[in-house]
């Protein structure tokens, strides 16, 4: 036996709230991130991923107090992304209780930041996030700011460069699929897994358990980051989870609707399904 496939709930956070969008846009408020985190921990999540989705708007990551509260209850690794620009930003997020940081925008213009960050904190602390969007000519370009701005960098060559510079992991998001529930982009996933030796985590597109199996079956993938599938499951099982902060769009919550393309599933259900299909996963007792 060796490494298991990591199942990583991804929590997009705006202010005090967990939000979820489609294609990283059109945010809906779902609840308190800490409550979702605790549920995912109990369900057997292998790691958690927090993204401050408005960090670039404010010019900094604002998750410190949420990180600290989470780290007191949840004893699995926590990766935090959004608005990280320099060594001090990383330092303060790690001090708050995170284990790794995820960087995108600031390394596009300044790839050397990957080297200095991995030299200071160890490469395994530095995750580089790549947001891929397919172009009309079939190529894939890396974007920043939740898929809003093109970096002009071709995804696979950027992934190789990122590895060369000392990144410890790559988180690849398919922006076109994100929140759609239409399944992953298997072609690009395959290309990136064979292009680099560092661990690759794929995010964006899971609509059901089968999608996750299709993605992981033939790839030496390190992890899958999942948002909607788990969030909807968490809401279904914890109706009265929180008193919601009246910030942002909560109409979605009041309406009790979920996207018809998303078949919510718990982490436990997903893992049992993968194990039945010979994918090694860790089961939480």
């Amino acid at each position, binding site marked *: 036996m060796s490494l298991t496939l990591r199942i990583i709930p991804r929590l997009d956070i705006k202010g005090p709230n967990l939000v979820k969008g489609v294609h990283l846009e059109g945010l809906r408020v779902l609840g308190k991130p800490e409550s979702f985190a605790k549920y995912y921990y109990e369900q057997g999540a292998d790691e958690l991923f927090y993204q401050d989705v408005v960090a670039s708007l404010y010019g900094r990551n604002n998750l410190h107090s949420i990180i600290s509260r989470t780290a007191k209850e949840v004893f699995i*690794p926590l990766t935090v992304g959004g608005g990280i620009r320099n060594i001090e930003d990383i330092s303060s997020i790690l001090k708050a209780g995170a284990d790794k940081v995820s960087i995108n925008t600031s390394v596009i213009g300044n790839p050397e930041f990957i080297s200095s960050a991995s030299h200071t*904190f*160890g490469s395994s602390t530095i995750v580089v996030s790549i947001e891929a969007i397919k172009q009309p000519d079939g190529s894939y370009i890396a974007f920043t700011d939740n898929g809003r701005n093109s970096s002009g960098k071709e995804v696979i060559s950027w992934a190789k460069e990122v590895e060369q510079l000392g990144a*410890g992991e790559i988180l690849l998001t398919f922006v076109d699929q994100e929140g759609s529930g239409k399944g992953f982009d298997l072609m690009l996933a395959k290309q990136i897994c064979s292009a680099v030796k560092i*661990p690759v985590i794929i995010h964006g597109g899971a609509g059901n358990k089968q999608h996750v199996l299709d993605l992981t079956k033939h790839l030496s993938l390190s992890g899958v980051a999942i948002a909607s599938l788990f969030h909807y499951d968490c809401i279904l099982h914890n109706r009265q989870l929180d008193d919601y902060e009246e910030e942002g769009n909560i109409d979605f919550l009041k309406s009790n609707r979920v996207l018809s393309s998303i078949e919510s599933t718990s982490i436990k259900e997903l893992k049992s399904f993968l194990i039945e299909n010979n994918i090694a996963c860790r089961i939480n007792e």
Partner: protein
Amino acid sequence: MNKPYKIAVIDYRMSNMFSIKNALTVLGFDVEVTSDYSTIVSCDGAILPGVGSFPEAMKNIKELNLDYAIKDIISSGKPFVGICLGFQLLFDKSDEIEDTFGLGILPGEVKSFSELNDKIRVPHVGWNNIKKKQMTNIKNNFDPLMKLKDQEYFYFVHSFYVKPEDNKDIYTTTEHGGHNFCSSILKENIFACQFHPEKSGEKGIRILSEIFNR
């Protein structure tokens, strides 16, 4: 049983001490994050945590004179735990970045995974299982993994692995990329592991409790 009360988390200015401190606090211990000699040796047990590079860590340990504190608390017989880089530092030397001498408390060296073969994924990140070995050098019933079933999963994150000189010190092994490496050692009052018990869910937390609740 008497509960030790105070655990020193040895601060050498590079690790994420927060998670180990949190875990120990949840378990009800009094935790002191410190680089002060007398504080460390007066505690009832100590942890050398670690994230970062080996040469940088040794430089800081020397500058802070922590090598004496570590050696003295170990020779006092109190429970001592090394985690991740804190496990690697106990050995003679490492070839991370440049050849660097370690604390030399245990015989052996630290090697790079990427030199093993071209296909191995480095860093080794994620949940992997540990396989217990039959131990011969257990002293005073200090056997922190005693209650664990074989092949339990723990969280790892590292690019280098430890190669102990003395096979008797090897407590568990783990496989990565077709290679079996030493994932923890046990020697008298020293338990040190490559994985992160403080990041391995309830099972990991229980190991820490087992060690210090004696």
